[in-house]
């Protein structure tokens, strides 16, 4: 900071501030033509619209899910991914049936959103969750 202040305090720099402002105002008053401006804007807009189209299925899905359902689905997805990232040692995993019911709030959320009633297999939890989420887009 001090170094900058020292540098900018060179005599002769700021004494011409008003002259610089005058010159800049003159430049501003006569901007160069920009014949490609509208075309440039159109290109940006179209690229953005294209990205929006590609993301549309996910937005539709988000609209279909009620807030509760969306929260529950999101929480379940995070939980699933976390459990996948940190595998528990096999000896600590209790023996359970192949199909385990997920906690009620999650199922209730999805049911409330009208997506599905699910009973998911622990081993394929992530994939099944995605399949459930994708299903409405493909079939409705």
């Amino acid at each position: 900071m001090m170094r900058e202040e020292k540098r900018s305090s060179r005599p002769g720099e700021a004494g011409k501030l008003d002259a610089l402002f005058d010159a800049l105002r003159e430049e501003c008053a006569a901007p160069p033509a920009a014949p490609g401006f509208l075309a440039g804007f159109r290109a940006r807009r179209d690229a953005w619209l294209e990205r929006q189209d590609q993301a549309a299925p996910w937005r539709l899905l988000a609209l279909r899910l009620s807030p509760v359902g969306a929260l529950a689905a999101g929480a379940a997805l995070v939980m699933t991914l976390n459990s996948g990232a940190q595998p528990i040692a096999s000896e600590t995993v209790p023996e359970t049936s192949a199909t385990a019911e997920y906690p009620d709030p999650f199922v209730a959320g999805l049911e409330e959103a009208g997506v599905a009633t699910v009973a998911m297999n622990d081993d394929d939890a992530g994939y099944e969750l995605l399949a459930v989420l994708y299903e409405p887009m493909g079939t409705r």
Partner: protein
Amino acid sequence: MPAQKASDRESIRGSTDPPEDSELVLRASAGDATAFEALVLRYETPLRKLVYGYVLNWEVAEDVAQDAFLLAFRKLDHLGESAAFKSWLYRIAINRAHDELRRSARWSRRLDRNVGDEALAELPAAGAESAVESRLLRRALVRELARLPKSQRTAVVLKDVVGMKYVEIAECLGCPIGTAQIRVHRGRQKLRRRLGEPGSGAGGGT
């Protein structure tokens, strides 16, 4: 005006009586792409000038202005009162220009440290000294503008570089005219002090 741009303008407007901003905004909100393009053509030059006041580079100003228009296009539904389109658009552009100014200021600081002879070698021999001086002063201005509080920076740029009237600045900032005048005054004082202008009590400070 280039022929292509003139024909764009004609095809978009399609009549001799230009519609009000509010009408174009309503049409654009309803999905009429040409209505928004008419707004782009209407405000393209003022917006480029506005952004130029911050970045002092026409190419960058064009880029940032296009970006501001795109943001406005995306957020058009958020514009409550369509009559206020102009000041809303200006505020979007000002925010984008602030971001760009901060980047430019960082670049300027790096350039001050790293580039010397190379940059000077590109300058013409005749009048090289004044050209160098001018370039250094511009760079210093960009750097010091970036250090001003946002409200003062905006006021100084709009007044001293873009050349707006106080009433326009006040409209743009959404503040009383007196406030705009005070911000310009204080911003100028700080710039003069930091740039070491004689008689301004040089030496930096805030």
